[in-house]
C-alpha cells in the first residue's frame, strides 16, 4: 500500500543542465506517461528531426518545445517503492525566476542538477541560495550528462567538490550522485558505465533522504507550537465560525486560545466540519472552522495560538529576501507585506550588514528591515512556522523571504529610539467595555472646512453623553493648537497630523470610548492609514458633504475669504486637493440635512453595530448584546 504522506521535491539548476529531461525520463521509465502521449511527443520530435526528448512530456507549451526550454513550473505525482512523491519541475532561465520560485516554494527537498560537462554555472548557485531563502534545507546534488563527460570519475569528483563548497550554512548536502538523465543511467538502477560509483542509484537515495521528513510529517505537528492563520469569519446561521488553516501544532475542543496581534482570548467550543460531525482534535495542515465559547471580534490576519506560546507581535522585523521583479527595490516606496493571512503596508530599510543595497533587481538577494504601519504577528526562525513572507506592489508579488530574527529595536512606525519594546498586559479593552456597558468605536468625519464636522461633533458628543456613553472628541483645530502645533498644511504635515490623531483615537478606543474626530483629512491615502491604525471594524468613516459654494458662504472661520484674498494658499477643496471617500459608512449632505437628522443617522449607525449603552440598573452582558449587534451590521 502507498503511504499517506507525500514527499515533495523540486528539481532546480542552471539552464539546459537537464532538469525537465530528468523528470521526463523518470516518468517515462515508470510507465507514468500514457502511450498516446509518448506517441504524440515522438511525432513532434520526429517532425523537428530530433531524438525523443523526455523534457517534452513536461514542457507542453509550443514555445517551450520549439525553443527547448522550460518557461513555467509544473508538478507531477509519482509513486516509487510504495512511496508517494511530488516532483516539481522548475525553469532555469533568470527571466523565469519567479516561476522557479513559485515551484520551489512547495518543496521540502531540493534536487540540484549540475551539468557534469559544463560544471557549475550562474543559476546553479543562485538556485541553491534561493532554496536557502525558501527554507528548503535538504539538497541532493545530481551531476548529470555523465555520458557527455565520458563517465569520468575524476570529472565527477571535481564538480562534486566544487558544489559542496557552495552549500549554504543553513543547508545540508545529502549526497552527490552521477547520472545521465537522457540515457536513464543511475536513476532507478545502477549503470555499468558508472560502476566506480558505490552509492545507491538516485531514486533509492531519494527515498532514503526523504524518510526523516516523512516521519516528521507523520507526527502531524505533535509537539510543535499551535498556529492557526485566520482567513475569514462566517455567519451563515446564528453561529459564528472562525475559518482558517493550522500551519503548526494541534488543537482540541475545550482548549483556551489566544489571538495575535489583537491579544484577545477565548475557548474553543467545537471544531466544526461538514457533513455535520464535530472533530475533537485538528492537526497541522487542516483547514478548520472553530466555534468559540465567547463572542469576540476577530478579523482575517490574526494568528491563533495557545496563550502561553503566542507568536511575536511587532512592527519591525528583519528578513532575508530574494527579489523577483525587473523593477528594482525602491527604498522610498511602500509595499504590501503578506505573512500568514495578514496584509499590511510596509517600508523597507537596508539591514545595515554591509550587503549591496543599490539596484536590487530580479534574482538578487538582500537583507532588510521591514517596518510595518501597524504591528503584525509572526514567528522567527522555523519555530511556529509563520515566518514566510511575500512583498507585493498593487498587483504583483515582487519578492519573497523568511524572517530572520526579531530585530534588536522595536516600535511603531517612526519610533526613533532603538530601546522601545511594546508592553502588554494592561487592562484590556473588553474589560473597559464590560465595565462601562458599551462597545467603543471611532467616528471619523471627513469633509471640507465649513462642511459641518465640528458642528456635528459637538451635537453628537452632547447626545452620546446624555445617552450614557463615554465619549471623546478630537477636533482638528484644537489639536493643531496643542499636540500638533508643530505641523503645517503641506501634504506630509497633513499626513503626520492624521497619523497622530489616529493613534490618539486608538488610545481612547482601547479604553472603550466612542471617539469622534473632526479633521478635514483630505487625502484618501491618509484616511486608509488611519483605518489601518485604528482597525477596519472600529473605523467608521463619515463623509460630511457640503458643496464648496455653500462652505464659502458659511465660512465660519473666515478661511475662504482669506484664501480668495491670497493669504491662504492650501485650503482643501479650493486651492489644495480634497479626495472624497469612495465608500464611507455614512454620507451626510449638510446643505440639505439638518443637524438633528444628522445626529439621528449616526446614532442609527451605532445602534446597528450594537453600540448601545446598557440600561441603567441592568447588568451589561458582554456576549449577547455584542453579538446580536454585529450580526445585523454585517448582513
Amino acid at each position, binding site marked *: 500500500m502507498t503511504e499517506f504522506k507525500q514527499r515533495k521535491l523540486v528539481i532546480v539548476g542552471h539552464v539546459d543542465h537537464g532538469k525537465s529531461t530528468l523528470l521526463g525520463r523518470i516518468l517515462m521509465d515508470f510507465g507514468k506517461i500514457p502511450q498516446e502521449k509518448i506517441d504524440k511527443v515522438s511525432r513532434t520530435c520526429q517532425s523537428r528531426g530530433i531524438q525523443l526528448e523526455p523534457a517534452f512530456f513536461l514542457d507542453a507549451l509550443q514555445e517551450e518545445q520549439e525553443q527547448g526550454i522550460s518557461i513555467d513550473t509544473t508538478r*507531477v505525482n509519482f509513486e516509487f517503492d510504495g512511496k508517494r512523491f511530488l516532483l516539481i519541475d522548475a525553469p532555469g532561465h533568470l527571466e523565469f525566476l519567479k516561476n522557479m520560485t513559485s515551484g520551489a516554494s512547495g518543496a521540502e527537498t531540493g534536487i540540484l542538477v549540475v551539468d557534469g560537462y559544463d560544471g557549475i554555472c550562474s543559476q546553479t548557485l543562485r538556485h541553491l541560495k534561493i532554496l536557502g531563502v525558501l527554507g528548503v534545507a535538504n539538497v541532493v546534488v545530481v551531476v548529470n550528462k555523465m555520458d557527455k563527460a565520458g563517465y569520468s570519475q575524476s570529472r565527477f569528483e571535481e564538480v562534486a567538490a566544487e558544489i559542496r563548497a557552495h552549500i549554504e550554512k543553513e543547508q545540508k548536502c545529502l549526497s552527490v550522485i552521477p547520472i545521465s538523465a537522457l540515457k536513464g543511467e543511475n536513476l532507478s538502477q545502477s549503470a555499468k558505465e558508472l560502476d566506480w560509483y558505490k552509492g545507491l542509484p538516485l531514486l533509492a537515495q531519494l527515498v532514503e533522504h526523504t524518510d526523516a521528513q516523512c516521519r516528521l510529517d507523520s507526527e502531524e505537528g505533535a509537539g510543535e507550537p499551535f498556529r492557526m492563520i485566520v482567513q475569514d469569519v462566517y455567519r451563515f446561521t446564528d453561529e459564528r465560525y472562525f475559518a482558517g*488553516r493550522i500551519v503548526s501544532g494541534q488543537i482540541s475542543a475545550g482548549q483556551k486560545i489566544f489571538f495575535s496581534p489583537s491579544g484577545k482570548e477565548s475557548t474553543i467550543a467545537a471544531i466544526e466540519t*461538514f457533513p455535520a460531525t464535530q472533530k475533537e482534535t485538528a492537526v497541522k495542515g*487542516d*483547514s478548520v472552522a472553530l466555534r468559540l465559547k465567547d463572542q469576540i471580534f476577530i478579523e482575517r490576519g490574526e494568528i491563533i495560538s495557545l496563550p502561553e506560546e503566542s507568536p511575536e507581535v511587532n512592527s519591525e522585523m528583519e528578513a532575508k529576501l530574494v527579489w523577483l521583479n525587473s523593477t528594482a527595490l525602491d527604498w522610498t516606496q511602500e509595499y504590501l507585506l503578506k505573512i500568514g493571512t495578514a496584509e499590511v503596508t510596509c517600508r523597507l530599510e537596508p539591514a545595515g550588514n554591509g550587503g549591496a543595497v543599490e539596484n536590487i533587481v530580479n534574482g538578487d538577494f538582500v537583507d532588510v528591515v521591514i517596518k510595518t504601519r501597524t504591528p503584525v504577528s509572526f514567528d522567527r526562525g522555523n519555530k511556529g512556522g509563520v515566518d514566510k513572507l511575500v512583498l507585493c506592489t498593487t498587483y504583483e*508579488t515582487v519578492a519573497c523571504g523568511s524572517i530572520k530574527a526579531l530585530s534588536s529595536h522595536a516600535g511603531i512606525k517612526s519610533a526613533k529610539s532603538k530601546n522601545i519594546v511594546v508592553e502588554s498586559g494592561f487592562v484590556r479593552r473588553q474589560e473597559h467595555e464590560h465595565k462601562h456597558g458599551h462597545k467603543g468605536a471611532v467616528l471619523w468625519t471627513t469633509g471640507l472646512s465649513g462642511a459641518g464636522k465640528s458642528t456635528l461633533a459637538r451635537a453628537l458628543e452632547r447626545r452620546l453623553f446624555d445617552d450614557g456613553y463615554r465619549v471623546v472628541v478630537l477636533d482638528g483645530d484644537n489639536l493643531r493648537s496643542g499636540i500638533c502645533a508643530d505641523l503645517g498644511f503641506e501634504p506630509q504635515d497633513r499626513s503626520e497630523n492624521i497619523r497622530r490623531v489616529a493613534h490618539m483615537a486608538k488610545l481612547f478606543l482601547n479604553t472603550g470610548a466612542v471617539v469622534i474626530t473632526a479633521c478635514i483629512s483630505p487625502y484618501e491615502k491618509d484616511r486608509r492609514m488611519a483605518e489601518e491604525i485604528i482597525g477596519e471594524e472600529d473605523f467608521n468613516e463619515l463623509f460630511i458633504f457640503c458643496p464648496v459654494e455653500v462652505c464659502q458662504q458659511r465660512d465660519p472661520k473666515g478661511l475662504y475669504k482669506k484664501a480668495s484674498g491670497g493669504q491662504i494658499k492650501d485650503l482643501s477643496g479650493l486651492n489644495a486637493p480634497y479626495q472624497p471617500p469612495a465608500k464611507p459608512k455614512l454620507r451626510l449632505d449638510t446643505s440639505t440635512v439638518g443637524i438633528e437628522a444628522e445626529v439621528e443617522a449616526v446614532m442609527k449607525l451605532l445602534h446597528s453595530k450594537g453600540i448601545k449603552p446598557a440600561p441603567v440598573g441592568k447588568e451589561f452582558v458582554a456576549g449577547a448584546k455584542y453579538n446580536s449587534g454585529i450580526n445585523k451590521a454585517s448582513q
Partner: protein
Amino acid sequence: MTDYLTHLEHESVFIIREAYKKIRNLGLLWSMGKDSTVLLHLVRKSFLGHVPIPLVHIDTSYKIPEMIQWRDQYVKDHGLRLIVGQNKAALDGGMGPDKGRLVCCGALKTQALLDTIKENNIGGLLLGIRRDEEGSRAKERVVSPRPEDGTWTYKDQVAEIWNHYNLHLPESVHMRVHPLLHWSELDVWEYIQREKLEIMPLYYSNADGKRYRSLGCWPCTGTIDSCATTLDAVVEEIRLTKTSERAGRAQDNVDAYAMQKLRSQGYM
C-alpha cells in the same frame, strides 16, 4: 492519521476560502462532470454545508441531453442558484462543430463564458481543471488573472509563492481559481467514492458496454469500452488504465498545441 485525499481536501478548502474572502461576485463554473461535482462538494465543506456562490454553466446546446436534465434536477433538488450562459448569436448564425472544432469551442464556450462573466459582473470563478488533464493546464497557477478579453499570458504568469495567492486585481480583470489543480483523475474518483457523492449516470457503462470517461459536447466527446457499471468498478478501471483521460475529446487532437491555443484565448 490524515490520509492523502484529506490532505488534498484541506488544501482546496483553503484556496476556496481565500477566493471567497477576496473576490467580489465569485461563481463556480459547473459542468456537472466529476470534477465539478467534487468542487461543489468542497465548497460545501468550506462553508459548512452552505453554497454561498452561484453556479455558472456554459450551455453550448450541443451537450449530451441527459446532462441538461440532470443539471436542472440537481439544482432544483438542492436549491442552488444557477446562471446559464449561451452564445445565442453564434447559434443563430449556425455555429457548430462543422465550422471547425476550435472555431466552435471558441464561440460556444470561450465567448459564451466571457459574455456571461461580463453580463453578471462576475469577479472570479472557481474551476475544476487539473494539471494532469493535459499539458497546458499543467502549467497553470492556482490563481490566474484574466483581462477582459480572457487571454492567458502563459509566458509571463504572476509569482505564486507558498500559499500567498495574488487576489488583488483591477475591476476589469476576472480571476480563474483552480482549487483542484493538484488533484489527479484517480484522486477525484477516489474522493467521490469516499464521500459517496451523487454522480451522473453517463459515467457508468451502459447496455452496449460503453461509458463516458470525460463529459462534454456530444459531437466531440467519445465513449470508451468499459464494463464498469458501479462506482467501485470505475475507480478500479481508472487505477489500471494506460490511456489518458481526454483521449476521447476531439478538440484536443486537432493539432499538437490545440488546447494551448484555445486556453490562451480564455477557454476553461
